[in-house]
């Protein structure tokens, strides 16, 4: 290929008369080394004006890619007056509240019964009691009530929440350790605290919550 002639892929390649013998082997010019090296030769020239200056600024700043890596996707919901969150990966579904069938001879207040989610029978727990926080006072705002289905290692549970705010993405830097002096209620299950749109949100420690759920359903 010379500089004056049209590149081979325009003459005998896929955009030419397709007489190139290598085309049988490569099927398309983009699989051919000649095409690749022609493309790479575009980089053998000085950088356009302003390009390197722009990059110098970008390189000096913090890397947004590493920040993205530490982003955690969290499902934020409300129990009574408390805002809590669980990793979104643990949440399988947000459903409308379903009727709860009580289980005879199971008087553990943390286990409210069973629900039928499109034919699948799931245990329904009282998350506020499981976490040991005060049961939600006042049930005036029932319109927001939702049923969260969470799953880990094939085991799924449902529980009612008073409101689901949605999914929040939080960077590692936004997470704070909960105050060590607060050990009451949900605080014992809280791994981190971060600022939500309507007050502080406690990020529940997934492993502890699922451990508690297994205890309840034993």
């Amino acid at each position, binding site marked *: 290929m010379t500089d004056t002639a049209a590149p081979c892929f325009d003459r005998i390649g896929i955009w030419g008369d397709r007489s190139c013998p290598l085309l049988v082997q490569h099927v398309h010019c983009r699989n051919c080394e000649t095409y690749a090296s022609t493309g*790479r030769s575009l*980089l*053998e020239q000085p*950088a356009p004006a302003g*390009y390197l200056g722009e*990059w110098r600024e970008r390189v000096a700043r913090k890397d947004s890619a590493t920040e993205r890596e530490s982003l955690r996707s969290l499902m934020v919901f409300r129990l009574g007056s408390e805002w809590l969150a669980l990793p979104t990966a643990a949440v399988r579904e947000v459903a409308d509240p379903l009727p709860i069938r009580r289980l005879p001879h199971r008087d553990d207040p943390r286990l409210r019964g069973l629900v039928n989610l499109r034919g699948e029978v799931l245990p329904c727990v009282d998350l506020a009691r499981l976490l040991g926080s005060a049961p939600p006072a006042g049930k005036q705002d029932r319109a927001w009530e939702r049923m969260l289905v969470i799953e880990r290692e094939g085991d799924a549970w449902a529980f009612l929440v008073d409101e689901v705010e949605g999914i929040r993405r939080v960077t590692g830097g936004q997470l704070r350790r909960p105050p060590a002096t607060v050990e009451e209620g949900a605080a014992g299950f809280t791994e981190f605290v971060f600022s939500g749109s309507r007050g502080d949100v406690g990020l529940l420690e997934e492993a502890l919550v699922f451990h508690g759920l297994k205890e309840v359903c034993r």
Partner: protein
Amino acid sequence: MLLVLFRIGAERYGLDARSLVEVLPAVPLRPQRGAPAGCAGLLAHRERTIPVIDLTLMATGKPAAQRLSTRIVVANYRAGPPGSRIGLLVEEATDAREVAAEALVDPGIATPDAPYLGKVVGEGERLVQVVELDRLLSRELRDALFPGGGS
């Protein structure tokens, strides 16, 4: 192992991608007056300052050409103090190749003046030689760039 390929003079060399952080365009560096030969300058990188070595300058005595394909490869420098990074200004850093570790062979020629040159591997009709990051800097250069640290 994945080798990030580049060129010194007419020959191809490779860096083990596992020790690399990122590959950047050859942005203007702040020259460091009085720095030892081979040091291309200082790079403001992710809220830190890291030294950049011009490998072409170090090996051939001529600075790297200013082209789009000339790039700065940022690497973790394990021979320095913990967490230290180094930038390598190299020509034609446009490609990477996966090579089998068994395919790397000893070149059989000792290079005491260039101790950083490692094993070679055939890549098409050409040979690619691995540049060992840990042995790249001479003692003077390492002491100048990473004072008070390293093994």
